[in-house]
């Protein structure tokens, strides 16, 4: 890996415009996912936590709720929110621990490409965990979440979550209280996503008209756009020397 770097570095520097930019994004994402697939540090924790949380929610609500459709939207999104925080703080945690973040930042590439690469890698972990979680909820709660609109909302919502989450993970990477701080920073800022996600899932599960589901998708998409726009504006400020 290390031996290849000079060659690849030359490739990164090519003034390939958009293609060159996305080659950097791909390189960072590829590196992260490959390391993760060998270490299974983030994925293992996130997956185990979400399955465990699903079981705990099952035990908590089983006898108290007449129809599980009533609580399923909340359960789905709460588990994703909390499992996500667990994974996100490791996305820069191991890099800071090993000192590889400095190496990454020294690379002669756009900082926003590093951020996008990290975001893409996190998105992969989240989607894998969600692919496990949705069938688990089907088995434990007998609720079918495999509907196109719910899945679309889940994908869009996850993109927004990962975009904010990766940025905040970078913000807290050098903070004294980073593990405990990340959820406190993230959860209130994620409120629009959470409310819309739950609203969308509930609307679809209740079998209401699809016209009631679209405004939710609209808010989630708007959130994604705003988040990426602000992230691109400020990402260079986070990794400035200080």
């Amino acid at each position, binding site marked *: 890996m290390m031996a290849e770097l000079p060659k690849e570095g030359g490739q990164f520097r090519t003034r390939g415009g958009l293609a060159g930019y996305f080659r950097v994004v791909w390189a960072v994402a590829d590196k992260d996912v490959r390391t993760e697939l060998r270490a299974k540090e983030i994925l293992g924790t996130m997956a185990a936590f979400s399955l465990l949380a699903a079981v705990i929610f099952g035990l908590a609500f089983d006898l108290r709720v007449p129809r599980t459709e009533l609580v399923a939207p909340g359960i789905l999104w709460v588990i994703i929110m909390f499992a996500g925080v667990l994974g996100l703080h490791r996305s820069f945690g191991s890099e800071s621990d090993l000192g590889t973040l400095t190496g990454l930042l020294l690379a002669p590439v756009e900082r926003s490409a590093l951020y996008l690469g990290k975001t893409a890698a996190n998105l992969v972990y989240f989607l894998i965990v969600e692919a496990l979680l949705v069938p688990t909820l089907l088995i434990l709660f007998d609720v079918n979440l495999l509907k196109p609109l719910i899945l679309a909302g889940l994908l869009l919502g996850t993109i927004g979550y990962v975009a*904010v989450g990766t*940025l*905040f993970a970078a*913000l*807290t990477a*050098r*903070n*004294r*209280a*980073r593990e405990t*701080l990340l959820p*406190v*920073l993230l*959860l*209130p*800022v*994620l*409120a*629009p996503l959470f*409310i*819309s996600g739950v*609203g969308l899932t509930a609307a679809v599960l209740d079998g209401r008209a699809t016209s009631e589901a679209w*405004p*939710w998708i609209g*808010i989630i998409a*708007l*959130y994604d756009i*705003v*988040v990426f726009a*602000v992230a691109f504006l*400020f990402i260079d*400020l*986070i990794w*400035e020397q*200080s």
Partner: protein
Amino acid sequence: MNESAVQGGAGRWFALLLVFDAVAAFAMIAATWAGLLYAGDAINLGGVEQVAQRIFYFHIGSNIAALLGFLASLVGSLGYLFSRRLVWDWWAAAGVEVGTIFGVFVLLSGAIWAKPAWNTYWTWDPRLTTATVTVLIYIAYMLLRNGFENPDTRARFAGIYAIFAFLSVPLTYYSARLFRSIHPIVFDGANQEAQGGFSIGPTMGQTLAMAMIGFALLFFALLCHRVRQMAFESRIDAIRGEIYE
């Protein structure tokens, strides 16, 4: 950063600040008097609700102060990120700290009023949701600041968070508004499902204006004191650094 300017002007500015404090205190006393005694009763309400509606003046007043605080945080954060002068960061941090206190008071006064008016302390109305989430965001902002040693890093990261926070608030409001709302809209009256609302008579309007001015003055007085304190903190740090070096 121009330390000597802060120090040299401190005496003169402090006298001015004390005068300002007195004005703010007087305005608050006047607002309290008006809110409790001068303002007329709401015609359509009776019993406990009649008494409870007077909290409205303090509710709106502190709401103005909280809004000003959060506005100060946005302006201060943008100012810091563009100019890189720590003074801006002090205004942002002080705005959040003072604004959060008023924000908590908005939530508490609202809950106290809501019990007789809505027969519940709490409901997930869009305004309530947004106000709560905003207060939580700014508490997180203060916790984030706590974890950084270097004042420049702290200012930069806190500034980025404040801007994110400020942008997420309207989205929270619109997502929560897709649910049904029962919060009265006193100035518009467009919400047919609102409960516990009333329309404003002349004495009530004057009282409301006094409360808003009083709370705004109180806010600015507290804000200036906090910024002054932060300027001192920074000076102490600088002097301590000189001594140990």
